[in-house]
């Protein structure tokens, strides 16, 4: 392993960026055929809702950016599992609670907060909080809070479609489980690539630049969503 050229590390970084590019086209929204399905479906539809949930996660680039930030310095499977569970707990609570009690939060503001979480993680990875305050905020708590916001975002988007009450709870749970499956899929790929890259010297050399770009991407998301909020 240690004989590998550092170039491989760079290649894996490029591959990492390359998979985001086509994904960006989907953004975080819901495409036309899914929209039609959501508005016309009746009764319990486990598999379609599982799929929509999973697709939402795998194609949500803001969420994937946050995962890259969280996983950048995590390598123990125990840690990874713990963080993912915190996130799951957060978004399950607000998704179910939000839809059942008809709470709608502005989607632009939620997405701006998600962008902000990418900024936070990039800055944290650069050691910014350590430098400024002498300690880093509790990362597990941050992931939980991010999960709570993300759940509200999902709840708001689902409510826009006025999903019929018939079979609502079962469909929501299916959607939530789908989000988990999608999350694990995305996680597996990201972890695989970061861990591969970690074994190369270029990982350390490019760590600052990568997190700087991550933070920048987060700022872009915040700017994009806040502009959307103010003009709509």
């Amino acid at each position: 392993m240690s004989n590998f050229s550092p170039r491989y590390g760079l290649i894996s970084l490029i591959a990492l960026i390359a998979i985001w590019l086509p994904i960006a086209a989907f953004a975080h929204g819901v495409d036309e055929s899914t929209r039609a399905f959501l508005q016309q479906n009746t009764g319990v539809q486990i598999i379609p809702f599982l799929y929509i949930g999973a697709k939402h996660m795998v194609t949500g680039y803001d969420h994937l950016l946050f995962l890259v930030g969280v996983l950048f310095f995590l390598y123990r499977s125990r840690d990874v599992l713990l963080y993912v569970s915190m996130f799951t707990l957060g978004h399950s609570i607000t998704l179910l609670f939000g839809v059942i009690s008809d709470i709608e939060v502005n989607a632009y503001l939620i997405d701006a907060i998600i962008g902000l979480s990418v900024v936070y993680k990039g800055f944290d990875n650069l050691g910014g909080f350590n430098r400024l305050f002498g300690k880093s905020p509790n990362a597990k708590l941050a992931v939980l809070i991010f999960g709570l916001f993300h759940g509200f975002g999902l709840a708001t988007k689902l409510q826009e479609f006025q999903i019929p009450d018939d079979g609502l709870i079962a469909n929501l749970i299916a959607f939530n489980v789908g989000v988990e499956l999608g999350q694990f899929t995305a996680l597996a790929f990201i972890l695989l690539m970061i861990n591969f890259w970690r074994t190369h010297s270029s990982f350390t050399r490019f760590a600052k630049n990568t997190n700087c770009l991550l933070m920048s991407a987060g700022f872009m998301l915040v700017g994009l969503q806040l502009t959307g909020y103010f003009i709509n």
Partner: protein
Amino acid sequence: MQDKRQEEIQQATPQTMELTNSALLKYTMFSFVFAAFTLLIIILPAEYDIDPTGIGHELGLTVFHHGKDESAAQLLTQEASKKSKEDTETIEVLVPAGRGVEYKFIMAQYQKLEYEWITDGSALYFDLHGEPEGDTTGYFESYAIATLSEMKGSFTAPFAGSQGWYWKNTTDAPITVQLIVKGEYTTHGLK
């Protein structure tokens, strides 16, 4: 051997990085400036047609928005007159249980539409109305409001814009509406 390598990696990669104050400031400033720059010249022009520098327009990124306006305007002015008055079209509209759908025709001022529609069963609440082109206030003018399972008639558009039906299904089964139209319009579809 593998374990030892793993340990080395773990020791070599800390949880966060250690940067000097000036380096941290430099990286943070760069990330912010780079984001602002990209937003101003690429993302905002392409997404929202907000182009303070004019560079987005130069790069051709604002076409997404201009294309939309022009094609809609062209449809209204040119193709409206081309459309044959003798063509009959049959359209099926599904109104899901407990939901309302809106089916609209884009028409120019004083264009005429003859119509006939029938449901496959129950009566539907409907509102036949028009919305002026480019209106953002939500204003609309109703021509007929009733609850029926079929209707036949015609109307002349009092203004350019979208004209058509809002059907509401209050039953717990989906209802299909068969709509037959003949007249002057450019495009039609669910709204």
